[in-house]
């Protein structure tokens, strides 16, 4: 029996060698500092914007960008652990905290678009015609109409929680308030199927609109502004951060040429721009 056991270990050893062998080519093919991990919100990937921008950046600089599309909250959590090099996110309050605690440096404004409140066309809470978004939220709560929240710490979720806070309502544990814990696309589909209201970024809503029964019921106003920033993960805190790559990406995304691409992106497909370039502007100037 011992001998059989020994052979088993031998086979396991061979298997491990196999495993390393499989791992080696991938290691050899990619010099470490050429890799750049970009942690970003799903809307930049789902809208297709990064599919246009990343190849240009890679060709220009020779970096290999690993785009990890997660919510803004998770992207910043990766940054806090030093597991990303550069972030492209849209959750301003959380971003300021991220900078203040020393997790990130060099926060630069990139672009904006806006959020919209969408819901069933019958509009059970009669929010259509509300002048400002907080009024619309108040009406939804007062009517007890179904509201679908992302519930995933994404930038959209942070914005939605901010609006609830503005109106002084705590929707948690309310019967009419449901959290999906999913991305924007899936949450929109659920809201459409369940005839509920939700807050969405305009880009994702535009992209999915053809499959949804969810018209825009409230829009406009500075509170619905959706601003994207690029942040470098603090290389002093995390020495493994590819700071040259992160700086190159920051410079690239606010460059004149890239900003022009952002401006025209989606014009043909959706009949309207998905993002508005903002390089060099101040956040306070937007939406005025």
């Amino acid at each position, binding site marked *: 029996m011992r001998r059989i056991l020994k052979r088993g270990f031998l086979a396991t050893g061979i298997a491990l060698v196999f495993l390393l062998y499989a791992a080696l080519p991938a290691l050899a093919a990619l010099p470490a500092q050429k890799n750049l991990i970009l942690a970003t919100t799903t809307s930049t990937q789902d809208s297709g914007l990064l599919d246009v921008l990343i190849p240009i950046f890679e060709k220009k600089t020779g970096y290999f960008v*690993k785009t990890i599309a997660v919510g803004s909250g998770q992207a910043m959590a990766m940054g806090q652990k030093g597991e990303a090099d550069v972030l492209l996110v849209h959750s301003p309050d959380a971003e300021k905290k991220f900078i203040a605690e020393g997790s990130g440096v060099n926060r630069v404004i990139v672009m904006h678009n806006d959020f919209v409140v969408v819901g069933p066309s019958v509009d059970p809470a009669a929010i259509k015609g509300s002048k400002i978004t907080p009024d619309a939220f108040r009406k939804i709560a007062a009517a007890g109409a179904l509201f679908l929240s992302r519930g995933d710490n994404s930038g959209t979720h942070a914005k939605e929680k901010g609006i609830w806070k503005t109106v002084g309502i705590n929707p948690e544990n309310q019967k009419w308030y449901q959290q999906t814990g999913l991305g924007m696309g899936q949450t929109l589909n659920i809201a459409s199927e369940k005839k509920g209201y939700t807050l969405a970024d305009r880009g994702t809503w535009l992209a999915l609109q053809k499959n949804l029964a969810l018209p825009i019921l409230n829009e406009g106003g500075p509170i619905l502004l959706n601003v994207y920033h690029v942040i470098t993960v603090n290389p002093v805190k995390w020495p493994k951060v590819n700071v040259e790559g992160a700086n190159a990406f920051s410079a690239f995304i606010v460059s004149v040429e890239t900003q022009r691409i952002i401006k025209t992106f989606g014009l043909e497909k959706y009949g309207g721009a998905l993002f508005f370039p903002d390089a060099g502007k101040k956040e306070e100037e937007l939406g005025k």
Partner: protein
Amino acid sequence: MDLIVEGIKKAFFLILTLDAEVLGITLLSLKVSGLATLISLVIGISVGTVVALSRFPGRQLVVSLINTGMGLPPVVVGLFVTIFLWRNGPLGFLEILYTPTAIILAQAVIATPIVTGISLAAIQHLPANLRLQILALGATRLQMVWILVKEARLPLLAAVMAGFGGVISEVGASIMVGGNIKGYSRVLTTATVMETSRGNFDIAIALGIILLILSFFINAILTQIQQRERPR
């Protein structure tokens, strides 16, 4: 319904025009899951055979652990593999997070207990006297193990199919450790998830159909080997 018809049309369009991106994604899926299955076979059949043929204290516990492992949730595997492979994690020096290699590793972890469990049951199911008979005929122990593995060919090929089927259809771990990077670590399942969230349901359905066709052909080939008349 229209959507499904559209999806089927799209699938055939993508296959017939040999769409470069879809072809790349399909080949990567095949390569990643194939290698992961291969690794799991080497480890799984060896460990399964050893455990099946030996008696030691705590053996019941080991078997229970292996059987539990057969149901390892891929997202949990993905989570742990990610934490280990983080560049500030214990295996960070390998620098393989968000690479196809990381997906191979995670999928091998998922498939190995499946192959081990089925191999163990297959070898143990063989009549005990068979071993004595083989040894009595003067075979060495290695020859005996080889004969036993050949005898258990049918269930062992089922183990291959179960292992491969488990990993090629898996999405949770692949998206976590691979990152779904375009043209690099995007496989059929992760591409399907992304296209769904982009609202491109037709492409998502098409990718699903391609995955099913791929699985069918792999399983057809394995079944062909499995059901072949035993060579004499």
